């Protein structure tokens, strides 16, 4: 009898801190390319707001939108392009008044460091040496949508179809590059930088246009004040050094 009570007490004691932690969790659904910079700024934000814990949910912006559409309990949504945020605003999944742009990026053509296919520019992609080109799935990965826009503008989209290897997120394309499974790929400048020595950036792709990151408070959030604080924080001077260090523009 005594033993049973002790075990029950222990189980309850373990559950209490878990329940307390969940109460102050701020769930941020953010595009995959923001993974590292958001990890960098997390301690800065949490120091300013004691008791708050930021929990990140990283995936492609399109996947995150689908989650919100299906009622996922996020507090903040940050996407890697205007399109997905516009859709979220249209469906009232985010509070339109809270929306701001907080960072910029550029799309680059990158290769695995040894560059076995000897790619030098986007025009080389049609050559025989290039067999596999990594690109995010344009339907839900903004990096893929930007790349498709550029390739369409350069009249290369149709001719390169057989060589395209779609990735579920821009980070997967980066992973393929790091492993050398593809000859080249379209990633953000910040991702190529993250790849370090394993990845070499060849050129920016200006035809992709401006890469803008909007962020907004999710309309079903139960922590609107904290969420708004986070949104404001992302664009503030306190977060700026972290973004600059990772290669984001402002």
């Amino acid at each position: 009898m005594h033993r049973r009570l002790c075990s029950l007490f222990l189980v309850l004691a373990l559950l209490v801190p878990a329940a307390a932690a969940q109460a102050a969790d701020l769930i941020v659904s953010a595009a995959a390319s923001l993974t590292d910079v958001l990890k960098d700024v997390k301690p800065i934000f949490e120091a300013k707001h004691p008791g708050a814990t930021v929990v990140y949910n990283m995936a492609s912006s399109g996947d995150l939108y689908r989650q919100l559409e299906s009622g996922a309990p996020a507090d903040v949504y940050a996407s890697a392009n205007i399109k997905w945020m516009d859709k979220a605003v249209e469906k009232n999944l985010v509070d339109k008044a809270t929306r701001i742009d907080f960072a910029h990026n550029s799309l680059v053509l990158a290769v695995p460091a040894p560059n076995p296919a000897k790619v030098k520019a986007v025009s080389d992609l049609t050559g025989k040496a290039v067999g596999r080109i990594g690109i995010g799935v344009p339907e839900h990965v903004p990096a893929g949508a930007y790349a498709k826009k550029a390739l369409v503008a350069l009249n290369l989209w149709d001719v390169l179809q057989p060589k395209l290897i779609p990735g579920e997120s821009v980070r997967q394309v980066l992973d393929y590059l790091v492993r050398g499974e593809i000859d080249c790929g379209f990633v953000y400048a910040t991702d190529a930088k993250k790849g370090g020595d394993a990845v070499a950036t060849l050129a920016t792709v200006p035809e992709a246009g401006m890469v803008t990151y909007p962020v907004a408070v999710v309309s079903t959030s139960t922590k609107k004040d904290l969420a708004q604080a986070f949104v404001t924080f992302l664009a503030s001077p306190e977060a700026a050094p972290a973004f600059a260090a990772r290669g984001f523009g402002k």
Partner: protein
Amino acid sequence: MTLSTAEFLDPLRLTLQVAGLATLAALALGTALAWALARFRFPGRDLLDAICTLPLVMPPTVLGYYLLVMVGRRGFLGAWMQEVFGVSLIFTWQGAVLAAAVVSFPLVFKSARAALESVDRDLEDAARTLGVSEWGVFFRVSLPLAMRGILAGTMLAFARAMGEFGATLMVAGNLPGRTQTLSLAVYSAVQAGRDDLAQALVLLVSAVCVIILFTTAKLIQPKY
């Protein structure tokens, strides 16, 4: 939104092709290894059995990762294949066959081993006294007696290969028309917001599975 037959039939064709070949490979290798472990005693037998059963308990993404590391362009097997044959299995349907074969192998292996071990040794010895060679003993006595168990395992293996997702995604990628099997097609359809396509594919998979299970059950029914 209209459905094109390509979106519908391509994944079906690929899935049957990949699952079919993977099951054949698993059947051949699984039965061979099962027979070896059932008939002979050697040091490390139990360890080998554990390794053969491993893909059954490991998460498919872990298996996919191991395969990616081994068969990728920089992996020891992949680099060798690249040098000697000039091919890479990553992002190809052959890679998908490899992933599906690895995950469904233990199902054939376990069932085949149990079935072969349950064959009465006296019957095999009787065949030997009548002058049948060892190959003959296997194909004319042991295998027919163990057939129902092996077929049951193969049926499970085929179902497993058809549903394979995690390891296939990591090794073969999700390339429409080239490696996008039915499970991957459903996943992509949902991601793209194409509920009509997702529903159609799910119905298709269910129908195909029911037909296969029903037909196989009829085939392995005792004929009396």
